């Protein structure tokens, strides 16, 4: 009896801790939906900033590298900028790259169960359509 009680208490404590950890990790980004296959939204322009094969595999390195160069060194080339991606890849339906499940940056990510927090801060819509109050 005591043993059972022991197990229950320890188990309950562990379960609460794990559940909270999980819940916190779920907070960031969208939940991973069960999308059978990524349907990729048509992009503006006729080609990407780098060969498509390369972009599919390495866009994260490209973005992170650009991020550090822009933030710390003030290099503001258009090519690899996140703003650039948004401008070409925003979907016609939502005008965004990350508003809905089907939008460009979310399509493969839900498929691959990747979660990104970029659009908690970065606008997911191009400048002109942004909700902000530009004069």
């Amino acid at each position, binding site marked *: 009896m005591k043993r059972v009680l022991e197990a229950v208490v320890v188990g309950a404590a562990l379960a609460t801790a794990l559940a909270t950890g999980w819940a916190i990790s779920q907070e960031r980004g969208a939940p991973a939906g069960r999308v059978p296959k990524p349907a990729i939204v048509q992009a503006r322009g006729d080609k990407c900033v780098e060969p498509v094969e390369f972009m599919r595999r390495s866009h994260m390195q490209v973005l992170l590298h650009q*991020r550090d160069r822009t933030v710390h060194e003030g290099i*503001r*080339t258009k090519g690899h900028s996140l703003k650039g991606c*948004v401008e070409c890849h925003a979907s016609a339906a939502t005008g965004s790259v990350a508003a809905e499940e089907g939008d460009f940056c979310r399509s493969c990510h839900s498929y691959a169960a990747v979660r990104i927090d970029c659009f908690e801060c*970065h606008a997911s*819509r191009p400048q002109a359509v942004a909700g902000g109050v530009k004069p």
Partner: protein
Amino acid sequence: MSGRDAARRQFLAWGAGALATLTIAPGVLLLRPVHGRAPEQAVTGKARWGLLIDTNRCAAGCDACVTACNRENGLSGATRETDAQWIRKVELRDPRTGRKASLPVMCQHCEHPPCVDVCPTGASFRRADGIVLVDKHICIGCRYCMMACPYKARSLVHEPLADQQPDVPRGKGTVESCTLCVHRVDRGERPACVEACAAAGRGAIVFGDLNDPASAIARRIAQYPSVQVRADLGLNPGVRYEGI
């Protein structure tokens, strides 16, 4: 390594600049703002950006700089204790003489910023051209920088945000402050508050390169008395005030 690299890069940059000057018509060059820098060029320590605020021209009750800052950077403009304020109008009154003054206070872009010293992850940093920034990608929201700042210049984003300005990403849980409108400066423009103050007909804020003796700001501080706030701390802020 980075020193030599930077030197080489700078040399190449100057070389490229010289070449460009020779090839592009000088007329085009004149149209470019004085502090323009090519997008692919890294910032250098050649310039140090600063502000000079003439409190004699700054009026109590005028908050053109504050609203312009809020609009430019996508701040709500709300002033609860949990809301971010990158720039604020401070009204001063000397109890001994009764003299009043009104002036804007924002990040003072120190040469020796305490926020940078205390930041545990290195998210707070001073860009080569003197602009003090937060790299929000590595800010963990510990708020030690807010504790350390003598000017109360920093804010934590207390709530989730939406519809940020594309040029100014902001998000819950990270610390932020005046960036001297770094995205505009890099385009060769002046900070939004400076433009707004001029547009309001006051022209109380001068923006420029403190390192360039020929710049308007450097000439003015060489000629007229100006002070730094809490100069006793020895932080050498890049923002100076006249008339207080």
